[in-house]
């Protein structure tokens, strides 16, 4: 858009609600989705239309708030030094308080931008994905995916997709999730960040296991939660360590010269890391869990069990990005220790290559994208590890857009395939297997073109797509600083382009391989509209970050992103010197990978013909099996044998079994030796017997004869009289 248009939009957005301060708006951004969650859970659960209106309305409000804040943030000079902040006391801790607060510096502003767009698009997409407006299924159960409804039309019966039975619940959960993400993004301290982190972890569990009737979904949810939990524990340790050393968790207070210097200087006593390094490492382990880096990557492919909007949102655009965001945010701390940075770089680069190789052999359309996500996150982490701050931020944002686009596109494809399955009536065909697809280009054109744009962006197709600019910048930085990382990332980029083209070729190009693919057709506007919006962003966003010294195009647009984001750090990072090698490399790997992928796969029609279906690749290098054998089965064995059998049943129950008979023995003893003979017989029966006996013996006095009574009275009278006379009256 022209600069006048930009200025007008900026003016409108920033003056909109001009009577409300920016800080207030920032506080309010996370709230509409949370409110939506409560409203849907408490009130609108039964009404599908109302639920999605509440949810989408909330996402719209948050989007609006984010856009206003973004527009205002753009207008502030040197936002990095004077960010919008606001905080308040929350929990009293003896003398001090834990605070909650918001912070909008350039990084946060950009995060708000892409998070709000992707969240809104995914919310809208979910309406169509869950088949709103369709009839209820024939035998749909809550907890299982919908199976289709039979309707009569023109005298013929045919099966149509049915609406999801747990429709409102889905929107409630993604509302809660959006709340968590926004909280994490706007927070100004590690505590609130961690709170948002954990909320998203919970929602990830709830949403992966959304179709809880399927055992695979349940297991995947537990796996996701457990694996990320491992990371979270270390992260919490890091936070606690940081708090104990510095006494604060607020970013602005930690990233001061003196604090950072102190942290760098104090050795932590572990493996030569400084305190800063150890804290950074611990926090990084949290990211390894949340952003699915090796070795905690195992949960993300299984998380594809959830509905596709979930995969798009959580595992492409937002939640996994939260891990990278944390590393970016803590970059000033991490960069103090060279050892930590090398650990980060190594894990990032290794994961990038590792996941890319696995993606080559996957047949499920979503699995390919899952491994692709892991790989791309590796790119970002590696970039941070070598110090390429701006490049990592850039790639984070572009990746969010094109990965969300790809996932939503895959969901659209799956919907189309399922539609075909309803027509044929065959339920054994897997609608997600790429080898059952083919030729969908003509059947689902909008999906095809948007998916193509996304795929090209992922591969780094030159100039046009945003992915090219961000990936190229990473490669350039890597070439300048760390050659092994550069080589690894270049190979991974090549593989990325290759498997992406494989995916596109098998899914869209060629001829339909099954009847279902032949009968597929385009999905409704609620699903294709978000695809279109995201593809625009996937292309357009790249142009804000064109390096200044790029041949021809560089200098035409200022490298706004570099200026803007670079201010977040205390020292502005330098732009890398232009070098032809990384540029050439990225061109070669992108175009070469795409071309090779197309040529190899345009004639492959089944998995038997696919030469890359190698065992160890298909089975993900057997990492899951190794974890099962090394960690999970021993833990189960330990829980069963040691804790349950020996400690609980043997020891504790044994003690109780001692108590039981012991108490019983005591009870019996008391009963037999005290209660029965003494209380019952001696006291109880005894007193009764004494009374009876004495009564029996004494009653003979009562003869009924008054003369005897008179005599008794007289005797007693005489006795008493004698006593009185002799002892009292004459004494």
């Amino acid at each position, binding site marked *: 858009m022209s600069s006048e248009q930009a200025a007008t939009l900026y003016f409108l957005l920033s003056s909109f609600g001009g009577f409300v301060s920016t800080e207030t708006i920032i506080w309010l951004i996370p709230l509409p989705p949370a409110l939506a969650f409560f409203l849907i859970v408490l009130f609108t659960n039964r009404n599908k239309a109302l639920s999605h209106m509440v949810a989408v309305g909330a996402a719209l409000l948050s989007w609006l708030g984010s856009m206003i804040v973004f527009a205002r943030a753009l207008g502030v000079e040197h936002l990095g030094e004077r960010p919008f902040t606001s905080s308040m006391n929350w929990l009293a801790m003896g003398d001090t308080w834990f605070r909650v607060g918001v912070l909008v510096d350039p990084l946060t502003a950009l995060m708000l931008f892409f998070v709000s767009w992707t969240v809104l698009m995914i919310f809208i997409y979910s309406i169509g994905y869950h088949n709103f407006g369709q009839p209820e299924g024939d035998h749909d159960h809550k907890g299982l995916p919908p199976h289709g409804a039979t309707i009569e039309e023109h005298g013929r019966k045919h099966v149509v997709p049915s609406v999801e039975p747990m429709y409102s619940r889905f929107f409630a959960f993604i509302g809660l999730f959006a709340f968590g993400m926004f909280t994490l993004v706007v927070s100004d301290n590690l505590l609130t960040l961690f709170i948002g982190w954990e909320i998203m972890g919970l929602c990830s569990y709830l949403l992966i296991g959304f179709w809880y009737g399927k055992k695979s979904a349940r297991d995947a949810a537990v796996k996701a939660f457990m694996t990320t939990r491992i990371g979270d524990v270390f992260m919490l340790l890091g936070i606690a360590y940081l708090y104990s050393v510095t006494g604060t968790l607020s970013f602005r207070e930690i990233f001061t010269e003196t604090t950072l210097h102190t942290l760098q200087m104090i050795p932590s006593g572990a493996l030569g890391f400084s305190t800063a390094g150890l804290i950074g490492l611990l926090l990084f382990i949290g990211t390894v869990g949340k952003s699915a880096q090796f070795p905690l990557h195992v949960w993300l492919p299984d998380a594809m069990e959830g509905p596709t909007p979930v995969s798009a949102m959580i595992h492409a655009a937002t939640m996994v990005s939260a891990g990278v965001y944390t590393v970016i945010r803590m970059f000033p701390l991490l960069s103090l220790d060279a050892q930590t940075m090398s650990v980060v770089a190594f894990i990032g680069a290794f994961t990038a290559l590792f996941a890319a190789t696995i993606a080559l052999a996957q047949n499920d359309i979503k699995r390919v994208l899952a491994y692709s996500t892991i790989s791309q996150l590796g790119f970002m982490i590696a970039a941070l590890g070598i110090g390429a701050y701006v490049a990592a931020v850039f790639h984070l944002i572009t990746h969010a857009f094109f990965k969300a686009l790809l996932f939503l596109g895959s969901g659209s494809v799956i919907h189309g395939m399922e539609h075909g399955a309803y027509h044929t009536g065959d339920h054994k065909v897997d609608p997600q297997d790429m080898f059952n697809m083919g030729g969908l280009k003509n059947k689902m054109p909008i999906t095809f073109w948007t998916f193509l744009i996304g795929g090209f962006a992922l591969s780094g197709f030159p100039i046009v797509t945003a992915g090219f600019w961000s990936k190229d910048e990473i490669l350039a930085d890597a070439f300048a600083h760390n050659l092994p990382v550069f080589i690894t990332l270049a190979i991974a980029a090549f593989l990325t382009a290759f498997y992406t083209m494989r995916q596109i070729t098998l899914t869209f190009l060629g001829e339909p391989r099954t009847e279902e693919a032949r009968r597929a057709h385009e999905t409704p506007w609620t699903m294709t509209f978000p695809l279109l919006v995201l593809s625009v962003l996937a292309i357009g966003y790249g142009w804000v970050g064109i390096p200044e010294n790029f041949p021809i195009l560089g200098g035409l647009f200022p490298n706004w992103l570099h200026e803007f984001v670079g201010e977040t750090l205390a020292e502005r990072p330098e732009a890398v010197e232009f070098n032809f090698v990384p540029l050439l490399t990225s061109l070669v790997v992108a175009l070469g990978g795409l071309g090779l992928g197309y040529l190899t796969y345009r004639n492959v029609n089944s998995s038997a013909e696919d030469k890359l279906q190698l065992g160890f690749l298909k089975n993900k290098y057997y990492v899951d099996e190794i974890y099962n054998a090394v960690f999970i089965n021993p833990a189960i064995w330990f829980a069963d044998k040691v804790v349950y059998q020996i400690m609980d049943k043997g020891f504790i129950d044994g003690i109780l079994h001692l108590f039981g008979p012991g108490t019983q023995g005591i009870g019996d003893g008391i009963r037999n030796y005290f209660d029965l003979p003494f209380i019952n017989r001696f006291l109880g029966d005894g007193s009764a017997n004494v009374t009876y006996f004495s009564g029996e013996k004494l*009653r*003979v006095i*009562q*003869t*009924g*004869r*008054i*003369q005897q009574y*008179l*005599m008794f009275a*007289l005797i007693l009278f005489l006795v008493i009289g004698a006593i009185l006379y002799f002892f009292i009256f004459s004494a």
Partner: protein
Amino acid sequence: MVPLSWYLIFSAALFSIGLFGALSRRNLVAILLGIELMLNSVNVNLVAFWRYGDVTNITGQVFTIIVFAVAAAEVAVGLALVISVYRKRNTVIADEIDMLKF
């Protein structure tokens, strides 16, 4: 000049005889006879004490009059009871009227 003690001994003896009669006689009416003797001995005692004390204090005789009245009333009621018991139980032997025994 009869000493007072003679009257008192006399009344004591009369009382004891009456007591013996009340305790040892079989017939109900005879028991009442014994009681009458005891009351008479009391009267003798009272009058003796009046005479041998301040004669102008007529309290002794008043008391005796009252005892007369009480004795008469008691005999009347008592004999009515005996007659009633006789009608019911057809006996006047004290030992046979033992319904209130254990």
